[in-house]
C-alpha cells in the first residue's frame, strides 16, 4: 500500500479550502466584533472588560472591537492577512490570559478551547497565506505586473 502522507492537496483544492476556512473564521470573528461594536456598544464592552480587570479597558476594548469588526472583513476578503492574523492572535492571547487559561480546556468551565482553536486557524492562515482567492493575491499580481513593465521600460 502506497499511502502518500504529508502531501498537500493540489493547488485549486488548497485555495478553495483556504477561502472556506477564511470565511468561517471571518464570520465567527465578525459576530464577536458586531456584538461589541453595535449590539453592546464600546461603552458596555469597556465596562465588561473592566469587570474582567483587563488593563486600560477603554483602549483594549476599542482595540479588540475594531480588530474583530474590521479585521474579520479583511480576513474574509483576504487583505493584509498576515497582519490581521497577528492582531487577532494578540486578542486571543489576551482573552486567554485575562479570562480563559486558568479555567482548564472546556468551554463549559470557561476554558481556553475556543480561543485555542481560533489561534490554530490564525497560525495556519499566517503560515500558508490567504491563497489565490484573496485581495493579497490580486495586489501581488498587480505589483508583479508593474515591476515587469518598469523593467521592460528601463531596459
Amino acid at each position, binding site marked *: 500500500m502506497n499511502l502518500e502522507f504529508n502531501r498537500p492537496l493540489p493547488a485549486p483544492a488548497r485555495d478553495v479550502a483556504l477561502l472556506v476556512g477564511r470565511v*468561517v473564521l471571518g464570520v465567527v470573528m465578525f459576530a464577536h466584533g458586531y456584538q461589541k461594536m453595535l449590539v453592546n456598544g464600546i461603552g458596555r464592552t469597556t465596562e465588561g472588560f473592566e469587570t474582567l480587570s483587563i488593563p486600560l479597558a477603554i483602549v483594549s476594548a476599542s482595540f479588540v472591537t475594531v480588530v474583530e469588526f474590521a479585521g474579520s472583513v479583511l480576513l474574509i476578503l483576504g487583505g493584509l492577512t498576515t497582519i490581521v492574523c497577528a492582531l487577532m492572535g494578540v486578542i486571543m492571547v489576551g482573552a486567554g490570559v485575562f479570562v480563559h487559561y486558568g479555567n482548564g480546556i472546556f468551554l463549559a468551565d470557561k476554558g481556553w*478551547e475556543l480561543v485555542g482553536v481560533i489561534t490554530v486557524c490564525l497560525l495556519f492562515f499566517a503560515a500558508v497565506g490567504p491563497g489565490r482567492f484573496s485581495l493579497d493575491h490580486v495586489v501581488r499580481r498587480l505589483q508583479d505586473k508593474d515591476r515587469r513593465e518598469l523593467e521592460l521600460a528601463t531596459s
Partner: protein
Amino acid sequence: MPQLPAPTSDIASLVARLLLGIVLVAHGWQKLAEKGIAATSAGFAGMGIPAPGAAAVFATFVELGGGVLILVGLATPYVAVLTTLNMIGAGLFAGHWTGGVFVAKGGWELVGVIITGALMLLAFGPGRVSIDHLLAARRRAKEPVGRHVRVEERVRVLS
C-alpha cells in the same frame, strides 16, 4: 502570496497542531475516562443520535486517537477527514448549526473553527515537524527520481 518563510511556517503548524490535538484529546479523554463510554452513549441517545453506542465509540476514538495522531503528525489527512465528519455530526445533533454563531447560546463557532483547523491540516499537511514528513522523506530517499519530482513540486508550491 504573503506567507511565512519555511522554518517559521513549520513552527506555526506545529504549535497549531499541539493546540488542536490537546483540545481533541481532552474531549476524547472526557468521554472515555471521566464520563465513560456508557454515560457518553446514554448522553448521545438523549440527543437523538442514531446508534448511540456506535456513535459514542466513534466520537471517542476519533477525538482521543485522532487528537494524539494530530499531536505527532501521523496519518494527518485521514485524521482531518474523520475529525471533520465527527464535528459535522456534533453540529447536526447538538443543534449547533441552527443555534447561531455564539457557543454561549449553543451556536456553531467551536465546531466551525475545529473544522477549519482540520481543513487546513488536510489541505497543507502537518508541516515538517511531523512523523508524516519523516516517513515521506525516508521513502523519497529510496526513490531518487521521485525525489526530484517532489523538489520541483515544492518549488512550485512556494513560488
